[in-house]
């Protein structure tokens, strides 16, 4: 873990040095929008400025979580394609839009055709890898990301995809190492990019129980890109892990002030409930349920949250399973598989749940929550050895996780001796 700690330190020191000093400057995406609009005014008959503007809108969508920017981006691309049909840069931007709208199958097809047209383009490998990761095609994604690092060693897009894959493959330390390298190579003017990487690193730290480390990273992220919704969401989870529920509520209120989504309303509803603000929590849950149900069959949905809702507060495990099956049809990534397995478990379909979970764990992922689910499913499948192993893994990975209590409860049932021993301490 030494290298993990040093990677953190490097990042933290670097972020102090380049802290943002000016007040409310235009964001990187806003700057790009301005520049692209100026280029269009100067050269309305060129396709590339429209592509640039489209990409800037996609960037702005990531800065704000406001998916309406994708529509604006699409409109610019139409102008670009009128001038230069099927141009490569425009198709690349279109792939980004598809990814942002979570049409991963469509994005994969388009990215592959781009890749075939220009096999030396590192960026098109990245787009293929993104779609493959989302769809759970991890072997393909690994080949593509490896190629990115082979063709341009140390390039930031390749490092970031490598970092995600390393996390999925259970290599948190290696993932942190790649994130750290990517962060150090990101220009200081790209404050949202920097904040995004810091937030990803924090998310990883949270998953292994390093709440303090995560908090520091998130404060750095917010210093670089104030009010960043991703950082606020993640910081709220850090507060929850520390049982500072009111702080979590405030952070999520702040996060939702600019542009809320179904998922962010669900996060707020959970935080409100934990903080004992029942009336507001009820109303927020209701609002969430109503919104999320409207888009169950859309690509860009809140099904992951809806499944969690019905498995918990919503008390409708059948509906959770139905939605999980819909989602499983669309995507085969480990998180979707985990949700589906958990829904199967809640509906008493233990063998199917175990099969699904084993497939997910076969990727190599090591997350406390997934190991907890695996342990509980194995317990109900009468596989005590596997159940004990998974639950112990869960605790070892993150003993302070929100669900650590539940893990210990199942573990105590399986191994009463260890429970006695623990309680006597």
């Amino acid at each position, binding site marked *: 873990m030494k290298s993990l700690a040093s990677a953190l330190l490097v990042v933290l020191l670097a972020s102090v040095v380049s802290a943002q000093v000016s007040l409310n400057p235009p964001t990187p995406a806003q700057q790009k929008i301005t520049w692209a609009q100026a280029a269009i005014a100067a050269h309305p008959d060129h396709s590339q400025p429209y592509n640039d503007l489209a990409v800037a809108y996609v*960037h702005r969508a990531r800065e704000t979580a406001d998916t309406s920017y994708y529509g604006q981006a699409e409109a610019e691309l139409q102008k670009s394609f009128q001038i230069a049909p099927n141009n490569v840069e425009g198709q690349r931007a279109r792939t980004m839009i598809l990814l942002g709208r979570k049409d991963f199958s469509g994005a994969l097809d388009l990215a592959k055709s781009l890749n075939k047209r220009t096999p030396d383009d590192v960026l098109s490998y*990245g787009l293929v890898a993104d779609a493959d990761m989302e769809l759970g095609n991890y072997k393909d994604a690994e080949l593509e990301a490896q190629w990115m690092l082979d063709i341009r060693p140390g390039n930031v897009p390749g490092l970031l995809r490598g970092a995600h894959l390393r996390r999925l493959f259970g290599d948190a330390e290696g993932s942190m190492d790649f994130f750290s390298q990517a962060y150090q190579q990101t220009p200081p003017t790209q404050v949202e990019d920097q904040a995004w990487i810091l937030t990803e690193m924090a998310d990883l730290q949270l998953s292994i129980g390093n709440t303090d480390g995560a908090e520091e990273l998130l404060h750095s992220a917010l210093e670089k890109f104030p009010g960043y919704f991703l950082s606020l969401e993640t910081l709220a989870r850090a507060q929850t892990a520390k049982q500072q529920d009111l702080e979590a509520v405030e952070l999520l209120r702040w996060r939702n002030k600019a542009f809320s989504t179904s998922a962010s309303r669900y996060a707020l509803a959970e935080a409100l409930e934990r903080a004992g603000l029942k009336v507001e929590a009820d109303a927020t849950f209701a609002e969430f349920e109503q919104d999320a149900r409207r888009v169950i069959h859309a690509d860009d949905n809140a099904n992951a949250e809806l499944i969690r809702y019905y498995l918990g507060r919503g008390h409708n495990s059948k509906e959770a399973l139905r939605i999980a099956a819909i989602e499983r049809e669309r995507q085969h990534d480990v998180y979707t598989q985990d949700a589906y397995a958990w829904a199967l478990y809640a509906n008493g379909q233990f063998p199917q749940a175990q099969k699904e979970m084993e497939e997910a764990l076969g990727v190599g992922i090591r997350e406390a929550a997934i190991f907890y689910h695996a342990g509980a499913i194995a317990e109900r499948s009468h596989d005590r050895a596997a159940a004990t192993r998974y639950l112990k893994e869960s605790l070892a990975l993150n003993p302070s996780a929100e669900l650590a209590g539940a893990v210990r409860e199942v573990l105590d049932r399986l191994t009463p001796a260890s429970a006695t021993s623990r309680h006597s301490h």
Partner: protein
Amino acid sequence: MKPFRSCLALFLIAGIAVQPSLIASNHREAPITALDHKADITDLYAFVSYSADQAANTRPSKVTLILCVDPFLEPGNGPTWFPFDPDVLYQIHVDNDHDARADVSFQIRFQTQYQLPNVYSALAGIGDNGANAPGTSNLVVPPQIRDFNNPGLNLRQTYTVTMVRNREGFDDRDDDRDDVAEATQLTNSDGSPFFAVPANNGPRTMDYDALYNAGVHHLENGISVFAGTVDDPFWIDLGAAFDTANFRHLGSGIPGVLTAAEDAANQNFASDTVSGYAVNAIALEVPIQMLTRTSEIEPPTSPDATIGVWGTTSRPRVMIRRSPNPAQNFGPYRQVQRIGNPLINELVVGIGSKDRFSMDKPKNDSQFANFFLDPPIARIVEALYGGALKVPAAPRTDLLPLVTYAAPIAAAGTPTGPVADLLRLNTGVPATPLPNATRLGLIGGDPAGFPNGRRLYDDVVDITLRVAVGGVLIPTFNHFPNNRLGDGVNLNDVPYRTQFPYLADCPSGRDRRHIDPGEAGGGPVN
């Protein structure tokens, strides 16, 4: 919590700026190698060895293989000059059963030593006894460098050569030990290391010739090896060629077209842009029976006589999936570049595919078949001549001998194998005595010349222009001006040696000269 993976796409814009570089000769031809000078392969040569007094029809016995890397080395460019990169795995591969997979590979690895780590320069020396601090006997400057043990050869490189026989039918992944059937480390009989010859920084510092000669190692098994900084053996009017084929007006009045006299002359009519520059070269001379499938010296009519040769450079790769206990980021090698025929990646492969080509294996070259059989350069040159030059239409099956085992290089009955960029050499064809040899190789009636292998003095620029653009392998295209295309540079600026390793001495860093247009021997500026 599900991570925010779908937002990754944005880093495609912010995090990387890939600017395809302009292509330039074999030197820096693909974006990735333009960024990695040390691993950039400039040229590959493979030919039946010969001597100065070579008699006609002498039965071949050995093949010389030369891999040049690290282009445009200015020999005066101290203080470190141009060591080979110890992190690069340099390889020369041979396919002897026509499947475009390596059957025999030579792996060359370098190591660096510092003899005087506190001295500022990699090379220093003067006179027989060196120079002392005034009034003392303290040696400050070492004696002139005349051997590899002189401390003035401050940065000294040794290297190893491993001959690998790969398992039949297995893939030839770089350094993948699962594929290796037999690996032999080549050594001097007395166990001494192989030394790499340094750049020639000037006559005060070193006796370059003495070092060069000492750097030729003849081994007991008949193999000879050499590595070092030498004169770049390639020649070309690079400036004209890559100013969109803006060749100079010579005797014919048509740019890029030679008169009969110019074509036959052993002199240059335009400047050799590579003149005065050095390059790092690795040369091996290998008994033919060590390379052929049958372990015999085959007659030229034998299908087993023809081998395919290519060179590669590779670097350790950063792996996404790390090896455990303790976790290692670095895994097997990733290929940075390869070369078979000259000018393929430069003139034939599209800019958007050059890195893919560089990093892929010859056995996968069918993906580039469209480039091989419809080279864009042909259509570009045709357009530039505005109709005065007719080129064959695609598909250019006349180019198949360059990318398959086919006549007139390979004997009848040789399996053609897959489309693959290999330098094919019929090892049974005797070397042409030097007085009879022509720079135009096969198309000049010299059966031992390019594209039957490649000798140092084969004019691959003119041959490629005539074959790939002019289509002169098709009889109906073998006429003027197609068969007189040329850049006006007919030979190297300095003579080659006439025995292994054949390469000319590295130009003196102190006194080197680059020949420019308008100078004597440099041809016109127009």
